[in-house]
């Protein structure tokens, strides 16, 4: 396993069509697992009113914000339909059933203080 990636937990720790958050000094990162067992990491905060995207309903490769039903692509972070806004997306991948986030990205989220 490359040292550029950090193991944050097992894939099965995230419910299928669900998400868990990773806490960082600069706020939470939502790590999603789709029904097809792909993972995506996005800023947890909705650009509309800051809703926690990790709590939304995951359908296909999209998530619906629990506060006002904005729908975002998990891949690009872009709002779908008539809404306009983008959620930052971050590198994430699966290796042998483990979920990995990029080391340099996590580093940058720690350096804030």
């Amino acid at each position, binding site marked *: 396993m490359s040292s550029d990636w950090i193991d944050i*937990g097992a894939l099965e720790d995230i*419910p299928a069509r669900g998400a868990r958050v990773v806490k*960082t000094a600069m706020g939470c990162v939502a790590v999603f697992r789709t029904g097809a067992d792909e993972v995506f990491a996005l800023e947890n905060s909705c650009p509309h009113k800051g809703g926690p995207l990790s*709590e939304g*309903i995951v359908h296909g490769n*999209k998530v619906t914000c629990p506060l006002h039903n904005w729908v975002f692509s998990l891949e690009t972070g872009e709002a779908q339909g008539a809404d306009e806004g983008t959620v930052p997306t971050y590198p994430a991948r699966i290796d042998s059933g483990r979920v990995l986030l990029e080391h340099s990205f996590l580093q940058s989220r720690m*350096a804030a203080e």
Partner: protein
Amino acid sequence: MTMKLIVIGAGMASGRALEHLFDADPDAYDVTLFNAEPRGNYNRIMLSPVLSGEKTYDEILTHDDAWYEENGVTCRFGEKIVAIDRDAKTVTADNGDVLPYDKLLFGTGSNPFMIPLPGHDLEGVIAYRDLEDTERMMSMGPDNKVVVIGGGLLGLEAAAGMAARGVNVTVVHIMGHLMERQLDEAAGYLLRKALMDKNITVKCSANSKEIVGENGQVKALMLDDGTELPCDLLVMAVGIRPNVKLAQDAGLAVGKGIHVDDQMLTSDENVLAVGECVEHNGALFGLVAPLYDQAKVVAKTLLGEDAAFVQKSLSTKLKVTGCDLFSAGDFADGEGREDIVFRDPARGVYKRLVLEENKVVGAVFYGDTADSNWFFGLIQSGEDVSEMRDTLIFGPAYQGGAALDPMAAVAALPDDAEICGCNGVSKGDIVAAINGGATDLAAVRATTKASGSCGTCTGLVEQVLGVTLGDDFVIPAAASMCGCTDLTHEDVRRMIKSRELKSMQAVFQELGWKTSCGCHVCRPALNFYLLADWPVEYQDDPQSRFINERKHANIQKDGTYSVVPRMWGGMTTPKELRAIADAAEKYNVPTVHVTGGQRIDLLGVRGEDLPAIWRDLNAAGMVSGHAYAKGLRTVKTCVGKDHCRFGTQDSTGLGIQIEKKLWGSWTPHKVKLAVSGCPRNCAEATCKDIGVVCVDSGYQIGVAGAAGMDVKETERLADVATEEEALEYITAFMQLYRENAKYLDRPYKWVAKVGLDWVKEQVFDEATRTGLIARFEFSQSIYQKDPWAEEAKKAEEKYEPIADFKLEAAE
């Protein structure tokens, strides 16, 4: 000079490599072939037809003795290599013979993975790998029970093969649907259905815990939910691991498999490897197509010719008679990817194509795989399909010539083409009806019955109307449930009942959903419909619920939650109040608010604190108030005749009884009740979903009130004399609402649609009322439980972050 080639393992990959080698240059090498199994190369993937009795061992033999002799191969079957000296370029056999080589080829294949469950070494626990395993399974008959762990390709073939021999087979699969690596959920659903038709019991999402034995012989498999599955034979078909031991001992580079480059050379230039034992660019290989590609490259490399192995997309077919199934390429959802989904519920057909940049990148077919090779060709060639996109899913027969639109496809159908499978209505019948004056869908339905039963052909009937009437007909936009279907909520509810659809996948398939897994609009609605109609058969799916119902708390605008314990009938005690006060202080609850439903709301609780605060409140005897649920909320009461000089009945007592009966039930929308002790109505019962006003003679039950976006007085459902009758009528009304209303319709909206008269007819008819109450009580026996206690017990970790890097940052 002839060089010496030693091959370790007589499998399908090494066998194919030898064929290519001898074809190209029969004299290049002097070959010695070692095989641990006491036989030569047979077609391992045809073991399943041998098992089911469709083929014999002789028929699947690839190379017989004559072939080896003809090609001058020295066979050492039943013998193993125990050591390799790469410097001296020799191998040592288990009888001590040392043989020199110029080139060495690993074809050591793979070992079946055995889950190290307690009891995995009992007699009667086997893998499904070789002829011995197959023969073991063939010895089972109608008096035997067999459990197969693993619902992948191999496990299902084993199960089907034994079932064909009359064996009582149960498949235990850990994932939510069968063959999850090759199939999406929809195809997995159809496959499961087909296997169950073959009398195979299928248990998905099932965790094996222990293998139980008696006198050293397997007796049963125990699941972690306590289910015991008796068996005479237990087959583990959960996967394979490349067999790398020998290569590792010889000091070759080994990861998950033996590392090879594009020329199939290992880290030693004189040693090659092929087949299931190799790892190439991080990938392992279990299917036969890439192994054959590798074999070609091995032969060329051995002969000093240029060749490179390239990984291609793979396709899978299941070799189970009667289960037509095909999957190829990559069918995960992704940005820029589009699905084309075709479902024919009547024939049990599901087809899904995944397109990316106008190319087909993946395909899953079930029930009709006739054109699968053509689609696989499109995946491999990466051809631009935008020209034929609209009719692509119908296969090659519909392609060519000018691009077709769906209307043209309908126009091209012959008159005897069946449009409505349920009622056997042909296109000609419909055209005749239209020409006879039936110019809209309702009229066609009334005259021909087309689309009148399951309704899935509605779109087709409309297209026939469009083709026949031309511009005179505009296809109406019905208020469908969401973009995933053209059906309305009412249609879907009706079909869930009438066609006994008991899972989300059953709904998607049988009602022809246009998406693979629904959306945030239809999934919560379907989850409710299914659990309301099939409380036992359907498994509640938390991932299809809104966050409030998933976390059993109300999400607030800053992402914190509110916690509201239940106060039965609005009654509380000093002890409860003290516990609430303690919890509020302990978890730094910033806001404590008294709600309109006579209870206390703790606002601003952090998500990860929820299980702990629930545990504290549980300890004081309180349960969830379901203040977040599309379900029973509160029963508001006044103090009634115990204290009030005007009170006529015990309104608090009745309120508590009602709340104790109804709490925990899920409903289409939230339900709020009230009981007032006299017509002065201090509990405001006349604007509730259900409200009781006590009078001297008994109880006036009103329903369908509202005091939200709309304000509406209740309408009188019934006047009854006793508390017992009041409870009966209220329960029956609740169940009628649960069984019939559209998701997110409050009772007043639903009653406005069906009419109060109809509601009264149902609850006044004694048999209907009794049935409604029985069904409600049955559902409550499953769903009336305190989610706080359940969640705090079993799922605490899901409320916490999966990882916390804040702690490290603080250092």
